């Protein structure tokens, strides 16, 4: 079923909308949640909560990119759940991602400004816009979906090291941009 048809089904309050959503996007949403939560049950619950939220939001919402829209919901729910569980320890992947992300901020307290500064959204998206498709794919898969290097390498046809280098460079560029815009110092 096409995305537009699924959305129409939501608008008709047809419960098939949820079934179709699960069939078409379920694996994406589950993986995304799992990458953040590293727990199967939690990831499944987040996935299901995403469907409920979608059901409650459409209508009136009519997402232009249904899967991306669902992914955003799933991501938020996953982070919320993570916060609830107050996990003190995380798996190595999450630790690595957090450390990589920290490279984009000059000083640890710089994050406070980023959280509140709407300019950040613009800078990040403008930066991604300026990147080519492969770089953008790698960045989004790594820092939005939390994918590992190996998986990204598989999709981009590059080696794991190439992906690592590419993302290293991108983080440096993003950091420079954030500094230039005065978002971090």
């Amino acid at each position, binding site marked *: 079923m096409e995305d537009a048809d699924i959305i129409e089904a939501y608008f008709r309050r047809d419960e098939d909308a949820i079934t179709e959503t699960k069939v078409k996007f379920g694996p*994406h949403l589950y993986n995304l949640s799992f990458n953040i939560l590293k727990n199967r049950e939690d990831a499944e619950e987040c996935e299901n909560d995403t469907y409920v939220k979608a059901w409650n939001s459409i209508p*009136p919402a*009519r997402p*232009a*990119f249904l*899967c*991306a*829209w669902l*992914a*955003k919901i799933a*991501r938020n729910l996953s*982070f919320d759940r993570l916060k609830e569980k107050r996990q003190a*320890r*995380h*798996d*190595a992947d*999450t*630790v690595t*991602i*957090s*450390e*990589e*992300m*920290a*490279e*984009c*901020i000059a000083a*640890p*307290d*710089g*994050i406070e400004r*980023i*959280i509140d500064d709407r300019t*950040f*959204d613009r800078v*990040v*998206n*403008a930066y*991604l*816009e*300026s990147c*080519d*498709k*492969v770089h*953008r*794919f790698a960045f*989004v*898969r790594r*820092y*939005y*979906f*939390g994918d590992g290097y190996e998986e990204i390498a*598989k*999709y*981009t*046809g*590059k080696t794991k090291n*190439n992906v690592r*280098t*590419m993302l290293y460079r991108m983080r440096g560029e993003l950091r420079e941009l954030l500094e230039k815009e005065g978002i971090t110092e």
Partner: protein
Amino acid sequence: MKNEINPAGFRLFRRLNCISERFVDEALTYEPVVPLWKTVLKWGGIAAAFLFVLADVIIIGPMLTKQPGVIPADSETTAETAAETAPGTEAVTDAAGKRLPITMTIAETLPSCESFEYKDGVPYCFYAYDNEEKLYRVLWNNFTGLNEKDVVVVDHNDVIKTLTYDEYPGGWTPQYEITAIDVKKENEPETEPVTEPDPGEENVCWFLYRGHRTMTVSTRWVFTQTRLIAIPSQYRYDLALGPYEIRNMEDPPTIWYDVNGTDTITYYEAGVQTEEKKFRRSYTSNNDTFDLITDHSFCLWTSDGITELDFGGDLHAYLNGHPGTYYLSCDRCDTEGAAFCEAVRLIAGDGVPETVPETEPVTEPVTEPVDDPEPEGMTLEKDGTLILCDFDADAKYPDERELCVEGEGCLTCRFSGTESFYMVEKSCR
């Protein structure tokens, strides 16, 4: 092992929820890339295996059978030949000290700014893998075009520079840099692989029309998710000054137009700049005869800052800068750069044609439009069917409206109040 997250980094990870849905969607629908070298290696390997078996059966087998224990008289020559054609060898010399070529496979589909870098508008380097999968940045000023299926042989002078990250300015990260003195196409592909068209790539087209003032096409305007249409803001299309007339009646349809300024088109043939021309300006006083859209096409995209006006075959396009009667149409752009356009006619609102004398200076901008009506609506005529593409101020997205034509796909009309022009994106699905 450290197993504590970096709190600031983790918060930033979460904060990246701000990434545009468009990019997220793009990442979700991304088609895996099969590296060219893998394809080439695969087929090369099969061919080599076949040849080996053939040689074994036809030459070596009979020799061993007929003359057991006897080394063939020409074995030295054979070995030498094998050494000369052995791929992936760096700066290998033969017994006479003559440098031997490196067999390489180009690394990316052409044309692509990813794999080719330009100096003064001319590609001067490309990337290639040798058969040991080492990536080279090959400097080569004598560019005459490469096909992605080609296997090239690089006769190099003896400079192979090992690159480090710091030395490399951007783009890909090659391990070596080599200055080629010659590049030869070694073989042509036997068969073209059948590639299923990606609907997102092939069947998305768009229209631009009704420019009133100088139209600045900026990186904000991205027309499709899969094809990069973002155009650096330094490229300006002065559509209101027209009418411009751009024609391409040439064949074959592999000529690119690189608009590198307000009024200049640089002609490229097979990647090599051949001439540079100003936009031809023409004007007709009889506006009624200016209905030129049928069978004319226009397609525009860019990659990495190179803005291209791309016409396919003997298709030709007219950009009529009259307010209200400015037409551009494109129906299908394929990945090879050709544009296949059907007769689609877009008629803007009730703009009054602006009288532009033929002798008007090329670079003079029009700062004030003669007629700048409110965005009341647009009319799309397709096969005689008129559809009103109006803008509903009460809609959630008042600047956008989607029109779907049964069997034809949908159009998204967009209006930018600040830029004073309309855009229509057509999905040909």
